[in-house]
């Protein structure tokens, strides 16, 4: 999913410190070997408790977080990944979370996004894609895949013509945000979205971040219902 992650602005900043959280050691080592040189893996964890410990210890820039993580005391209906963010997110303001999911069903990821992750990427993505997404998240951007953009359009009723009247409305998207989401859903990278809409890449990123914020804060029925109904994955 290069489209998901072309958000990286191509400036490899000073190396990004990353903690990888996944319950499969094969996957962790595979991913570790595949990441760019600009990314330094400073910790690994395999369940909720060890993840909390590792993140608190290492204080990384980005946590690559498996959505489906085993752990003690994870409330039913919540995923382990979301639980990790809930436990450490508020005490580590400098750390950003990028969700990793084996599934590209956006519904599965909504829970972890709503808990505070800055985006998600599927586990099938190549090391380069993951690296770009990590850089983007480290730079403060949100990472949206076409699937997630489609889900957002659906959940916010964009297809049936619901448009936010005021810019601070949480339960609907503004016309511009819808345009941006549509283009991302059509497979456009951020800079292509920018060219298409005659705006700057920075503005695209602002819109995407605004959508992410709405996704996290909105109490729209569809969002909570979807997240609850898809308990299994």
């Amino acid at each position: 999913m290069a489209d998901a992650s072309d958000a990286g602005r191509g400036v490899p900043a000073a190396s990004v410190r990353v903690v990888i959280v996944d319950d499969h050691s094969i996957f962790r080592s595979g991913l570790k070997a595949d990441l760019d040189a600009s990314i330094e893996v400073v910790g690994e964890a395999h369940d909720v408790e060890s993840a909390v410990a590792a993140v608190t210890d290492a204080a990384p820039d980005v946590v690559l977080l498996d959505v489906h993580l085993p752990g003690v005391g994870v409330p039913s209906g919540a995923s382990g990944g979301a639980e990790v963010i809930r436990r450490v997110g508020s005490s580590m303001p400098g750390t950003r979370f990028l969700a990793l999911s084996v599934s590209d069903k956006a519904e599965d990821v909504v829970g972890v996004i709503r808990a505070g992750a800055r985006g998600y990427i599927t586990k099938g993505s190549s090391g380069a894609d993951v690296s770009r997404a990590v850089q983007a998240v480290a730079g403060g951007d949100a990472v949206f895949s076409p699937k997630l953009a489609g889900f957002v359009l659906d959940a916010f009723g964009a297809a049936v013509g619901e448009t936010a009247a005021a810019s601070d409305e949480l339960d609907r998207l503004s016309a511009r945000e819808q345009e941006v989401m549509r283009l991302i859903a059509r497979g456009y990278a951020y800079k292509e979205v920018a060219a298409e809409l005659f705006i700057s890449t920075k503005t695209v990123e602002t819109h995407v971040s605004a959508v992410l914020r709405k996704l996290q804060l909105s109490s729209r029925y569809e969002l909570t219902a979807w997240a609850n109904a898809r308990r299994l994955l």
Partner: protein
Amino acid sequence: MIRPRACVATGVAAGMAEHLGWPVTVVRLAFAATSLAAGAGLLLYVWLWALTPWAPGDERPTRRAPVAWLLVVASTLSLLGAWVVSAWVLDGDEGGLRWWFGAVLAGVGLAVASGAWAGFVDRPDPERGPRHELAIRLSATALLAITAVALVFGDVAHEYPVPTFAAALAAVLGIGLVYAPTLVTAWRDLADERTKRIREEQRSEIAAHLHDSVLQTLALIQNRAGASSEVARIARAQERELRDWLFDGDTPADSDLGTDLRDFAAALEIDYPVTIDVVVVGESRERASGEVAAAAREAMLNAARHAGGEVSVYVESSPETVEVFVRDRGEGFELGDVPGDRLGVRQSIIGRMRRAGGSGEVRRGAGGIGTEVRLRFPAERLGAEAGRG
């Protein structure tokens, strides 16, 4: 021999008359006459009832005769008869006792039979339904309760306590049996429910297990092998199949536009070095067999064949329009450069959309990379198309 679905009581006589070519009345009289010969006709009737299939068809069998009510009436008559006979029994007619006992038992049996008929046979009949069932039950219950009370406090009980007690017991048990069909049905439902739940639990257990093992491995394979390599494509197809099987369950996929294009994308991914992302937004009312779907499939095939790599398909259904975007990152082409004898794009995409009343457009992708095909179809045309096809 078959029984007609619209019948009087069971359809046996009508079916037999049809089979033999006799008038129905003759068949009925023959059954009645042979029943007098030690019940032979009745046995044959019941045997035929149990073994003869319904006439082929979809509608539920309907019965003109109110059989359950007739059974209630017969039961009442039988019990009244017993009451009459009881006067002779009290006069000292010892032989009358057997008749009396037989009549009481027959009355109880007929009341139970009316309940069973209402509960098992009449229940699926749309003409009768639960209200009818309840009325029959209440009548049979009242009849049996009155009988039991009359027996216990009647005069026969003083003279012959043991047979009277047995008959009263039969009446009380009969009340229970009147409600048996409900219990049987409820128990059957419960058993079905339990089986279903166990299957569901088993499935989600298997799903959780496979999710933690096989799906992770398939993801890792895709990750290591590079997105458009053969191995990754096979792993992706495998993952999709497994996921569909695990999480969609037995429900057949409905053939709307989104589902159809997803399936088509999966098939293309196996044949061509391409990964296709299909994103669907909105409720799709467009059918998979429609012109939009055909044009979209053509566009996807073009993208897979000529561009490869990553292809994005986006379907949005709003109340006014259905839009499909197919975007690839291949070398791209100018429509004007395509020789006139190449019909693919002109005919099967743009021409097809125009003929169906929509519009199609092929242009360079954003930033001059690849090609984007855009199909648009007004929603009000969908109804017309569905009506035609």
